[in-house]
């Protein structure tokens, strides 16, 4: 796009501009799409973000490392545990310490549960946007079981701030293993129902196949990671490229397709849920005993610059810390997946109809607070 500062020139007749404004039932967050339409076809689309900018990076400069964990929850709130893990790993890498095996196993299990919960919510909202209103309830009904697991061990359903530099805040509840095993058994029976209800449905396939084609070059140029990028063939799973925590110990597949349309981005997430279930099954029965928290005198990163990347439910999250030896970072910056995923929407939705715009933005799975931080 040549000029993003709004200088729109309505060249042809019958072109008009409307806002899918910041308050909208289908953008799932405060994001404004300035759409230029001709009749019913989208000519181009300018997203305006920043409605929920809270200054998380600046606020973090006056907080110590354990204190700034609770702010990272609130970026991509559907992958709260994974965001916490990213900052904790970066600080531990800076200090040069390694956590115990028990902590690694529990962190990975919580991260995979978070990934499943996030994909369940995405599936619910995607079906609802397309008009199948019952999918909303089925996805959320199953997600409640994961939230119960979180609440029992960490105390909160959505914003847990449980994983801190050095380990975990508390030990998990004794019921943790039993509940997780029960959940895995329960969800393995329910996932095929999701496919029967939506995936194979001819109306759904007609609405999503061939829509929103994203080529591999575009995905790499715009930096679209996560399931959206993997739908176009971009092998970007950080769990395979730079494994962290307990990922070197588990076997799972990285799901990619070569097609790059909305239907295959949908399929990537559905198959990822199966892979996450298998990762949890491999880890849950063998959690070793050990200390929950390292005995550290003070959590201070030595002087220097440190970077750590993790795979959240939406893509690659990178944490960059510049430290000068103080208990607070001098500068912390987050490379968030949703920020890069958002800006490809202009390229892939040009030429489609308005109804397809909803399907495309649903398949990119955007969480707006992550864009604005």
């Amino acid at each position, binding site marked *: 796009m040549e000029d993003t500062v709004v200088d729109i020139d309505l060249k042809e007749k019958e072109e*008009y501009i409307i806002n899918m404004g910041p308050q909208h*039932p289908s953008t799932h967050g405060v994001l404004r799409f300035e759409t230029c339409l001709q009749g019913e076809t989208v000519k181009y689309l300018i997203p305006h973000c920043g409605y929920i900018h809270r200054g998380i990076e600046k606020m973090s400069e006056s907080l110590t490392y354990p204190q700034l964990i609770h702010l990272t929850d609130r970026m991509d709130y559907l992958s709260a545990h994974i965001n916490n893990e990213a900052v904790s790993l970066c600080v531990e890498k800076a200090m040069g310490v390694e956590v115990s095996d028990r902590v690694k196993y529990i962190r990975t299990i919580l991260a995979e549960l978070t990934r499943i919960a996030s994909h369940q919510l995405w599936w619910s909202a995607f079906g609802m946007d397309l*008009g199948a209103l019952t999918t909303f309830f089925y996805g959320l009904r199953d997600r409640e079981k994961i939230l119960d697991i979180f609440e029992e061990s960490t105390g909160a359903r959505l914003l847990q701030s449980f994983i801190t530099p050095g380990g975990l805040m508390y030990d998990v509840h004794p019921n943790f293993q039993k509940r997780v095993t029960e959940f895995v058994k329960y969800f393995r029976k329910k996932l095929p129902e999701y496919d029967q209800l*939506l995936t194979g449905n001819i*109306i759904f396939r007609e*609405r999503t196949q061939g829509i929103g084609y994203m080529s591999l070059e575009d995905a790499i140029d715009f930096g679209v990671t996560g399931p959206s990028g993997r739908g176009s063939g971009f092998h970007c799973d950080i769990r395979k490229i730079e494994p962290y925590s307990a990922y070197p110990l588990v076997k799972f597949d990285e799901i990619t397709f070569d097609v790059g349309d909305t239907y295959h981005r949908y399929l990537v997430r559905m198959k990822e849920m199966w892979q996450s279930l298998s990762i949890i099954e491999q880890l849950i029965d063998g959690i070793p005993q050990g200390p929950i928290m390292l005995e550290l005198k003070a959590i201070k990163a030595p002087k220097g610059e440190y970077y750590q990347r993790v795979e959240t439910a939406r893509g690659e999250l990178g944490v960059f810390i510049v430290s000068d030896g103080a208990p607070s970072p001098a500068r912390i910056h987050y490379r968030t997946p949703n920020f890069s995923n958002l800006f490809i929407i202009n390229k892939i939705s040009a030429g489609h*109809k308005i109804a397809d715009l909803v399907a495309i933005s649903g398949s990119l799975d955007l969480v707006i607070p992550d864009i604005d931080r």
Partner: protein
Amino acid sequence: MYDFTPIIESISGYFTSTFSPLWAGVLLMVLLGIAILGFYAILGLYLVYAERKICARMQNRIGPNRVGPMGLFQTIADLIKLLMKELIYIRNADSILFNIAPFIVIVASIMAIGSIPFAKGLQAIDLNIGVLYILAISSMGVIGVLIAGWASNSKYSVIGAMRSGAQVISYELSVGLALLCMITFSGSMQLSEIISSQEDGWWIFKGHIPALIAFVIYQIAGTAETNRGPFDLAEAESELTAGFHTEYSGIKFAFFFLAEYMNMFIIAAIATTVFLGGWLPFHIYNFSVFNNLMDLIPPIFWFFGKTAFVIYVMMWFKWTFPRLRIDQLLALEWKYLLPINLINLILTSFLTLMQWHF
């Protein structure tokens, strides 16, 4: 209970004997109008309640259950709320057309109810072109929709109304052709004669394959006619345009809403009459014990039971499937439903000629 003819005869007899023919006619029509309006309003309210309860059960939850026992007064509370809302007057809208539009839609559906046979003898008008009359009247409803979109003086309302109009007009073809198949089987357009021709078995069983195909097509096209279910993009496309009834508030919106549910009832009632035997009970060929048992249930329960089944299937469609886009919707009609309908018609005519139906 089993035969309403003597009751109706006595009432009309009383009126014709006490008043002059002109006044008798007028008073009878007024009485009929009040009865139908009352029936319409109450049935409309309880259809909305039924939809909320059914969709709740499909979604693993309980529907309304606080207002009144089991939530039965919920729609009445909603109606009172709508009545108390402010009627917003649009400055640049054509106020005559703007106000007439909801009435056209309601009048069309009330007129259609007048010709449905509810039970033996309980039918307001028994025209000899019954089916044609109903098809013509439901076409009048489209005019209401188009006028509503036009008179709102808003870009999005016009787009929504045009889409909805295109959809309804296309699917009327399919509805008409499916009904034409059944008229070919039964040989008459008069609704009471269609029912009496099913006394030895419902047409959906007697007319085996073509009747089944016609029923499925009628069900799909009927759902699209009423802007319901997976074909509801004209009103649920609240992404950008909220459809032709955006600018309506309060009781006028309630009219559109009610008319949609009652249209659903009318489509279901026609399906019951033509395919499923109207108010006739379910008889197995000569199994007289079973038949006598089935005869015990009054016909009016049979009628409402069958209509309820068809309405349930329509609600099932709405809550399971995603929405179709407008071009896919029209493609479905013109490329799939219409050719199959025509083939079905040829098949039906052939079967009727050769008397190969039961």
